[in-house]
């Protein structure tokens, strides 16, 4: 079965629709599915909910979909880098559900693993626990968090083979595997598609069973905060 599509727009055909819950990989601007986000913008699908650790910046990442008002709700742990996000949130145009970062990652992983809920210590006694079931284990309180079952997953990997086996690169892996796992359909964008057999089976980070559609393209890979050190004088 062919999983390779010619473009991000083609890969979204028949799977993207208004009102969807989309799980997106990436941390900050690192490892985000930038080509698929651009294609969602061009597609125009609206009232979307994104489970994504961050919301991009004003003109990159999910930020481009905020500008076009295609996002109804964000489920995120940190949105501090996006001024348009804050404007829409404070004016009530955008819903926001803060999740602790590890809880968000585990909610995605759990959804992908068929686990509808799990108990965690994270957030006990804080605003995050409000309205959630509390249960004691070994004398300590834990709160119930629910798995995320997304309609669509959009992720970025470094390499894919034509069966969808994925390899990520350095810290660009981040939320991509759990995001990929929790969607009914997962589309991945990669820098390189290689023939089956050319990736070492022992070095696959995410097996192709989680991947339904693959596209390859040029990535800008913008850096949010370039930080360097001075070279010592020889």
């Amino acid at each position, binding site marked *: 079965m062919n999983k390779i599509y010619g473009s991000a727009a083609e890969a979204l055909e028949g799977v993207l629709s208004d009102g969807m819950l989309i799980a997106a990989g990436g941390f900050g601007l690192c490892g985000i599915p930038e080509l698929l986000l651009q294609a969602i913008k061009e597609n125009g699908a609206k009232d979307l909910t994104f489970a994504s650790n961050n919301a991009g910046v004003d003109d990159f990442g999910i930020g481009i979909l905020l500008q076009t008002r295609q996002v109804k709700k964000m489920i995120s742990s940190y949105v501090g880098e996006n001024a348009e996000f804050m404007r829409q949130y404070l004016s009530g145009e955008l819903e926001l559900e803060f999740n602790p970062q590890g809880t968000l990652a585990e909610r995605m992983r759990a959804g992908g693993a068929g686990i509808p809920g799990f108990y965690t210590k994270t957030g006990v006694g804080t605003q995050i626990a409000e309205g959630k079931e509390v249960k004691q284990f070994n004398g300590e309180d834990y709160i119930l968090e629910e798995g995320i079952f997304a309609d669509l997953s959009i992720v970025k990997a470094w390499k894919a083979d034509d069966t969808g086996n994925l390899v990520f690169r350095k810290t660009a892996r981040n939320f991509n595997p759990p995001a990929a796992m929790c969607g009914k359909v997962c589309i991945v964008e990669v820098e390189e598609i290689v023939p089956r057999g050319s990736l070492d089976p022992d070095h696959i980070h995410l097996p192709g069973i989680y991947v339904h559609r693959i596209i390859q393209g040029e990535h800008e890979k913008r*850096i949010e905060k370039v930080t360097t050190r001075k070279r010592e004088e020889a």
Partner: protein
Amino acid sequence: MPWDRDQMAARAAEELEDGMYVNLGIGIPTLVANYVGDKDITLQSENGMLGMGPFPFEGEEDPDLINAGKQTITELSRTAYFDSAMSFGMIRGGKIAAAILGAMEVAENGDLANWMIPGKLVKGMGGAMDLVAGVRKVIVVMDHQNKAGESKLLKECTLPLTGKGVVDRIITNLGVLDVVEGGLKIVECADGVTEDELRAATDATIV
């Protein structure tokens, strides 16, 4: 003379022992890495890395290699990468020996507030709630008082909590305090700061 930022970081580095896996927060905690000396410390970055190296040289930045503060960094020979679910699995699972982080308020029962001020722009808690709930020892490094001169060590936190009863040790510009039964216990005073001065600057109960 109270400690400056670097002296606080140096004091915090004394908390770290050979072989520890440690997570450092943003701000003064980041400086702690400069003072670990020849101790064998592995730094975790919660976006999916153990063995975080220094900032890259100019021109050698890699967009695929950043820390949890979104800054470009480098890898070391010991480095391992993993996804966010595993990263927070090791945090929640108590595998990380210590987290050193900043705070807005700490209460005498170990409550910590460092993620939001009501009425101000809320950016989100990121990984802070997971870290303070899961890491074995939570060390706060912060100024003893806020800009208005009020104690940040309180009987009860006034801001929304990041974690309840999670702080073990507090290192401020005035000294080091532990969270114990009944309040805070002075471990040491900064050079030139007397115990009376430290008490006078602290709202929390000192036992």
